[in-house]
């Protein structure tokens, strides 16, 4: 048996590799997360109020869902100002998350750190204009500035606490946030058509690999008001709805000895295999799921982009790497529209930013649509408020069967096209990027 390994994988947030085992003319690809996150061990015995800061290690959105779980644990409703500030933080995180992925995708064609005149191998007219790439980075900076204003820090925010947020905003920030929202929307509307044409249009995809159809086609998202988790099929029919606090009963995790990341699946349907083609318990989460469900669109430009994504028959299949990248563009517009609505002074002032709880409960849970997809936390504490049990469903990361499937298809396709080791690695990385 011979093993080919692609490691380290570019743009992967966790240490990961793809190992291909060749046996008797057959090859099997394994997408492996090679280091444990060990978050449970980090959190057990910690004071529960510290979890929003510790769990932000997973991603900034975990800070927010953790604070929401604390609200539930201590039995308080945060004041409207705190709710708005937390929502505002989530919007800025979403823009930063998506723009970073789009920037990474652009940089897959050329070394972003070479001097300008040495960059790239593509013809000038095929590229996104350099000034637009610069604007993208500036727009990313602006989103992070908004996250810093609202969350204290962009990467590991710390403003959300049990019952609200840690402080109110200072006056100069109202105007600045409004400015950031308007600039973000203007840029998003400008970027989407150029990116779609230059990076994703006909002949611009990675030798057609981005049109690779991917399964599964079931998808999970939170309803607009956050009161239900909706399971939909490819035709947009609701297959099931359930309460967010049931998510740990409805979604189970299957573990394999060759990867540290578990495989999330719908418990009612049972674990069948990690092959989406033969398993109906696997699903999508994240931008593509939200966009095709019509969520996240506040205004006309985003809705137009969404309809165009879904209805345009000339484009790549909807459930594809290409479709996932396009959904990032649509969501950037939709999120920027929401920012314009929310980042107004009247939404960012209020008599109180925090409700101080009077008692500590025993269990608390919360669910949130993070930029990458649905995430959920559930805590159980002892009489001193120390964490006794913690469950975290990071469905975006634990949607592992999908990632394994994409890596496998990229490997198969590369073999058919006789790609080199380096080209195959690039194909795997580009295919995994938008998910």
């Amino acid at each position, binding site marked *: *048996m011979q*093993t080919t390994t692609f*490691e380290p994988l*570019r*743009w992967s*947030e966790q*240490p990961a590799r793809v*190992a291909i085992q060749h046996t008797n003319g057959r090859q*099997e690809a*394994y997408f492996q997360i*090679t*280091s*444990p996150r*060990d978050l449970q*061990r*980090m959190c057990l*015995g*910690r*004071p529960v*109020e*510290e979890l929003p800061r*510790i769990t932000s*290690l*997973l*991603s900034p959105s975990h800070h927010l869902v953790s604070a929401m779980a604390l609200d539930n644990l*201590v039995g308080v409703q945060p004041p409207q100002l705190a709710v708005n500030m937390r929502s505002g933080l989530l919007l800025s995180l979403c823009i930063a998350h998506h723009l*970073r992925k789009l920037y*990474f995708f652009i940089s897959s064609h050329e070394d*972003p*750190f070479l*001097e300008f005149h040495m960059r790239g191998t593509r013809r000038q007219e095929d590229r996104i204009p350099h000034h637009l790439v*610069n604007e993208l*980075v500036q727009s990313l*900076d602006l989103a992070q500035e908004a996250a810093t204003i609202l969350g*204290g*820090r*962009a*990467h*590991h925010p*710390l*403003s959300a*606490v049990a*019952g609200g947020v*840690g*402080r*109110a905003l200072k006056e100069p920030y109202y105007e600045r946030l409004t400015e950031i929202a308007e600039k973000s929307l203007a840029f998003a509307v400008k970027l989407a058509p150029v990116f779609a044409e230059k990076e994703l249009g006909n002949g611009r995809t990675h030798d057609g690999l981005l049109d690779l159809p991917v399964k599964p086609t079931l998808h999970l998202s939170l309803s607009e008001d956050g009161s239900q988790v909706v399971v939909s099929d490819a035709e947009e029919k609701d297959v099931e709805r359930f309460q967010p606090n049931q998510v740990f009963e409805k979604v189970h995790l299957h*573990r*394999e*000895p*060759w*990867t*540290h990341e578990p495989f999330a699946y719908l418990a009612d349907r049972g674990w069948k295999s990690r092959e989406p083609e033969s398993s109906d318990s696997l699903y999508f989460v994240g931008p593509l799921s939200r966009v095709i469900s019509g969520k996240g669109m506040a205004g006309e430009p985003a809705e137009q982009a969404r309809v165009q994504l879904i209805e345009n028959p000339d484009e790549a299949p909807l459930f594809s790497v290409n479709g996932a990248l396009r959904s990032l563009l649509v969501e950037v517009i939709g999120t920027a529209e929401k920012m314009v609505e929310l980042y107004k002074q009247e939404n960012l002032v209020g008599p109180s930013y*925090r409700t*101080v*709880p009077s008692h*500590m409960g025993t269990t608390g849970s919360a669910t949130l649509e993070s930029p990458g997809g649905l995430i959920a936390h559930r805590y159980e504490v002892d009489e*001193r*408020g*120390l964490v006794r049990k913690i469950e975290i469903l990071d469905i975006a990361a634990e949607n592992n069967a999908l990632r394994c499937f994409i890596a496998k298809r990229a490997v198969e396709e590369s073999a058919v096209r006789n790609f080199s080791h380096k080209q195959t690695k690039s194909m795997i*990385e580009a295919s995994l990027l938008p998910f």
Partner: protein
Amino acid sequence: MPKTKLAIFTATGCRGCEDAVLDIHHFVNSLTPWAEIVFWPYVAGHHWQDLEDHDQIDLCLFAGAICTDADRQAAETLRDKAKLMVACGACAAFGGLPGLVNLTSNRQEESMPGITEGDPPPLPRTEPRVRGLSGVVETDYFIPGCPPTQNLLWTAIQALACGGEAPARISYAYARLPESTSLAVTSGVLPRHGSTFGGERAVCAGCSRMKQEKKFSTVYRQHEIAPDPGRCLLEQGVICQGLATREGCGGLCTAVGAACRGCFGKAEGIYDAGTKMVSAISSTFDTTDRKEAERMTDRFVDLAGTLYRYTVPEQCVLLSADPKE
């Protein structure tokens, strides 16, 4: 003049440190006259084989904690290649949040159940204890923080990658770095081996909150109090580690009402940050009554996990030594 060959790598971590380098995007591009990024798998997609093209690299920014034997091997490989090895971020510098697992019983290899047929590729072995970079290889410099603040990161990169030629490093070096380090940086020579690109004093020195009278009359946990936004958190009874933590962040956490948890590591001259905190707090108890003092100390929970939040593997005196040593 040959360009400085730069490598950037994260072992087990959240990529926050690498994102922090990316966040100085325009500046990083301005490094081009001095430095060439020859190994940055996360952003530029380099392979391990790409390192073999270089007999030596000049500077390696290593982020993340050492949690598996693959992390250890990566640290050793990069140490062999790099003239200067820099621990970038709290995980590499002190073990960081992943180091909290060292407070639980020894990590054992978990046998995970599975139904995969055949002979799937094995995973790297999990290390018995999480370590910082300096726990496994010699480390030349430290850039603390979770993640490091952009100004410090940029100053360090310029100081180490550009020699004496990048002028933009100077103002920040004068303002924040310890005197010996700032003198070296502004003179265009390498700082003393083992230097930390952080402040010289404690976080309290840069915190905007007013300190009046350090008297500890009660202990509040974060969720139990909406602290006065202008007054020292510790004086209000919230355990804030600013007085034992190295300055350099400008009091980011305390500015948003959150207590310092020590991601810059212990301040200069402190032997053990946790001991320093316990000593400082207990010496300012606003009571001489033993029962009252006991009532207050009973309110402290999870001292090890709080006072060594980011530093268990490398800076907690009682726990940092390898059990075999």
